[in-house]
């Protein structure tokens, strides 16, 4: 193992902003800031439950512009897989996060902060599976 591209300060600052977001949503509305849950909840809207979900997602979309306006740098994405890979990955992430009732934010941040056993189990499983997937793709099939 060799450590590369490590950006500890922007990582801590960005993480703190995500934590503030989760804190604010709980303090004001009593809600968990889990992105897959907020998005998935729009697919079977409960009366009075739509507006805040849409508002949160619009805010999420405005995040990169907010960083740009504040003078921060907005990274350009580099993609890890082609068209079919993106579609397959999207289907897996969409179906999997709903079946498993959470993603990196809902289980990995909010759930762990509540000391939830389910979230700890889910986080360990998706971390290990994702690391194994990258290992297989890069070092077994990828030959690097």
């Amino acid at each position: 193992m060799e450590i590369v591209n490590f950006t500890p300060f922007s990582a801590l600052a960005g993480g703190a902003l995500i934590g503030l977001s989760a804190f604010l949503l709980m303090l004001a509305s009593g809600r968990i800031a889990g992105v897959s849950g907020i998005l998935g909840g729009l697919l079977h809207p409960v009366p009075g439950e739509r507006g805040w979900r849409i508002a949160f997602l619009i805010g999420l979309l405005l995040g990169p512009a907010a960083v740009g306006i504040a003078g921060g740098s907005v990274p350009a994405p580099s993609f890890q897989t082609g068209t079919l890979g993106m579609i397959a990955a999207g289907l897996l992430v969409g179906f999997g996060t709903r079946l498993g009732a959470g993603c990196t934010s809902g289980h990995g941040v909010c759930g762990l902060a509540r000391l939830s056993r389910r979230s700890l189990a889910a986080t360990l499983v998706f971390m290990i599976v994702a690391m194994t997937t990258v290992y297989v793709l890069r070092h077994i099939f990828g030959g690097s």
Partner: protein
Amino acid sequence: MSLRTRQAATPPSVGEKVKTNAVALVAGVLFGAGLTLSQMIDPAKVTGFLDLFGQWDPSLAFVMAAALAVTFLGYRLARIQGRPWLAPAFSMPTRKDLDFPLILGAVLFGLGWGLAGYCPGPAIAGLALAELPTLLFVVAMLAGMLLFHVALEERD
């Protein structure tokens, strides 16, 4: 009588709804800004973390650690005031059991996350960067969620 019934089920006022949506918007901006500042909206940054046995970038662990620390303290502060500002109660998940769907869901999510380097938050925020592969991922992700909803979710 009718007055009592109405009061028992008082829907939130327009003002309360506006406040709830404004708070959610601000929370969304903070979340998206955090993902951008930490570069998590770049899938290469995420797979750099997931590649534990190659050239490893520990940044994502620092993002999660800081987010977790602030959320952990924040949730305790929120609890102290008894109820949220704009809602009658905290909406917390109540289940505690480890069941098969939880684990299978996490496995499927992990496969997709490792393949593309996108999880739901960065993918949505990443739409702002106007790249076609991100849009493909998000449309497929919505299709996957819809598939779950149609095929498996219990109706009530």
